[in-house]
């Protein structure tokens, strides 16, 4: 059997990704995580002096704290296996990427292991976030200076 015939056969036999089902699962999982976030946001607004605008920060921190517990007790990977992007896209997924790497590399010591590898997975998100923010802000500022758009 040559390569081409084999690759056709392989595509036939390898189970298809259940895309529709995965989308529904991602929607529900992500939706639930964001709803919990909304609840935490209201909690901070109701009991502390946070407005809708400022409650986002403590909410995100709390969500990551919850992600830490779930990751540490081995539950987050189960949620991820079910939810796919539903657990990866919310900030808890970002937390999970950093926390799991930190836990994993503890055996190499705190400086080289935890410190050095914490950003192994999540680092690229920070790099591209900061760089794209810089480019976008630069372009917009130049356009404003040229009078093409307003702030």
């Amino acid at each position, binding site marked *: 059997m040559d390569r081409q015939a084999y690759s056709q056969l392989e595509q036939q036999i390898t189970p298809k990704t259940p895309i529709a089902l*995965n*989308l529904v*699962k*991602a*929607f*529900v*999982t*992500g*939706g*639930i*995580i*964001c*709803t919990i*976030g*909304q609840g*935490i*946001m209201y909690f901070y607004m109701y009991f502390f002096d946070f407005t*809708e605008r400022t409650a*986002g920060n403590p*909410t995100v921190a709390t969500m*990551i*704290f919850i*992600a830490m517990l779930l*990751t540490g*007790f*081995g539950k987050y990977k189960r949620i991820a296996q079910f*939810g*796919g*992007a*539903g657990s*990866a*896209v*919310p*900030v*808890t997924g*970002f937390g999970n*990427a950093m*926390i799991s790497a*930190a*836990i*994993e*590399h*503890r055996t190499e010591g*705190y400086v080289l292991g*935890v410190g050095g590898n*914490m950003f192994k*997975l999540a680092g690229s*998100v920070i790099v*591209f*976030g*900061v760089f*794209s*923010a*810089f480019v*976008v*802000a630069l372009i*917009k*500022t*130049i356009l404003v*200076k040229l009078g093409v758009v307003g702030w």
Partner: protein
Amino acid sequence: MTASFLIAFVVGGLFCVIGQLLFDVAKLTPGHTLCLLVVSGAVLDGFGLYEPLIDFAGAGATIPITSFGNSLTHGALQEAEKHGLVGVITGMFEVTSSGISAAILFGFIASLLFRSKGRP
């Protein structure tokens, strides 16, 4: 009030659906997908679209990773508004995201407390 929860659910869910499409249809790795979403969050804020979305959806827009790109751009733009082009650069260094600090802090704490478990 109930409406806010419902909107957060739907909007947050839709962000994840986009992510899942990038996983399954575009066959991107989680790393590539998240980077793409962060970049699009930054770009959306450049067009001034992300803040209204946060006003609308609350946690549905602040919890997805896109809001990270948004808050970075937003910080840079605020500085730029005050100080012009130099502000873009100084703004970049001034912006902090609670998400990053929280993840670093809790990541370190987790490394003190937990071990990984090789179970399904």
